[in-house]
């Protein structure tokens, strides 16, 4: 995992970020603040309409915020376009171009950083011929070409909006493998939105859960899991004080609850560490649970550490 000296320790930093698509509409993002440390592979999760695509498009410099600021690799969004790759949900490619033409476009648009051999290899691994037209490709093949276009510019930050939604399991596995290999070799920071929690659990080491226009859970996945406990026992939610109860459900004569620990848990409760899926579902079902951001993911009120 190498990182060049020009890569800042923070890939993405939002401060009071807001985006509203119209005067009457509820804001997609509202006073959203967080920090994504460089080198992480982060899952952007949230219910439909939570603002995931908006946040990714803001980071890519395709939309402008209506409030607050967003810094991308230490600069304004769009300023370092050659070091940020964005793969939109609909993977816009020119259908009339061949694969070779598409990659040549990548080379022309990214003259300083383009790695032609690498882009060509990603295409070849999918058994695609450079002379094929984009129009004739399947969804998975198009995603592969789009990924080759994105990785060929050797980005420091990859922004992926539902990258694997239309792929069969094999193509998904192969392309995720390609992406992970790139991250292993170059220390690329990845932020990707997805609904498929089981897929994220293997690939990601960092989580940003969006809800109500803000980050509700943010941090390293191991740290977030370790901060929570699943408890089961005979008692009431009130007995669980001083812990924060994220979600509680009846279980026989007692209850089972996901708590955020404040100190040790009373041994009368049976405890288990939650899975990522359990952690996410509990928070999605309880939109009013207080937010939790680990220190590295919180925006510091003062200076940014070098």
């Amino acid at each position, binding site marked *: *995992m190498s990182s060049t000296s020009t890569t800042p320790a923070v890939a993405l930093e939002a401060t009071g970020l807001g985006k509203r698509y119209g005067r009457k509409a509820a804001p997609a993002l509202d006073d959203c603040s967080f920090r994504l440390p460089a080198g992480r*592979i982060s899952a952007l999760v949230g219910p439909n309409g939570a603002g995931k695509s908006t946040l990714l498009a803001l980071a890519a410099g395709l939309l402008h915020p209506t409030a607050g600021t967003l810094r991308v690799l230490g600069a304004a969004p769009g300023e370092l376009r050659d070091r940020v790759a964005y793969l939109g949900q609909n993977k816009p490619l020119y259908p009339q171009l061949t694969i070779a033409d598409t990659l040549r476009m990548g080379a022309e648009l990214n003259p300083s950083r383009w790695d032609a051999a690498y882009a060509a290899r990603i295409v070849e691994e999918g058994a695609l011929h450079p002379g094929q037209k984009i129009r004739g490709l399947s969804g998975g093949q198009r995603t592969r070409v789009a990924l080759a276009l994105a990785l060929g510019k050797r980005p420091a930050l990859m922004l992926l909006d539902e990258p694997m939604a239309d792929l069969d399991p094999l193509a*998904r*596995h*192969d392309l*995720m*493998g*390609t992406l*992970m*290999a790139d*991250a*292993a*070799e170059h220390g690329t920071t990845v932020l990707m939105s997805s609904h498929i929690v*089981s897929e994220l659990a*293997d*690939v*990601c*080491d960092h989580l940003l859960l969006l809800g109500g226009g803000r980050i509700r859970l943010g941090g390293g996945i191991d740290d977030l899991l370790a901060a929570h406990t699943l408890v089961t026992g005979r008692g009431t939610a009130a007995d669980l004080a001083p812990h924060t109860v994220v979600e509680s459900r009846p279980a026989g004569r007692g209850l089972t609850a996901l708590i955020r620990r404040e100190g040790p848990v009373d041994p009368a409760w049976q405890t288990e560490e939650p899975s990522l899926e359990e952690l996410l579902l509990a928070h999605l079902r309880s939109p009013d649970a207080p937010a939790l951001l680990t220190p590295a993911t919180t925006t510091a009120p003062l200076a940014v550490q070098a």
Partner: protein
Amino acid sequence: MVEYRIDRRSGVATYVQIVQQTKQALRLGLLEPGDRLPTAREVVEATAINPNTVLKAYRELEREGLVEARRGLGTFVRRTLGAQPADSPLRAELESWARRARAAGLDREDVDALFGSVLDQHFPKPDELFPEGDQ
């Protein structure tokens, strides 16, 4: 080169699966001292898991003294486990025993239970975690 197989449904943490499969390869003689483990890049390309998961597993193997990381070169096997290659006399004896057990009408579960009980008798595990309510 060993290849890791990640079972998503096993409930065993992914990095633990890598540790266990490496140890199994050492026991079977598939890996010997001096052999290089696949790089994190090679593992994640084949398995589509997070690179840090592989590094965590390799750190654990290093902590146990089984492998060592050589800067810029890779991770190499330092010592082996069990030292019983796949074609050892002990394995041959076990195979003939298994054939006799089968001929005697034992099924897989019977053999499992019998083998487990002899194993426990000769290789006690003092720090074994007992299942709940069994203490």
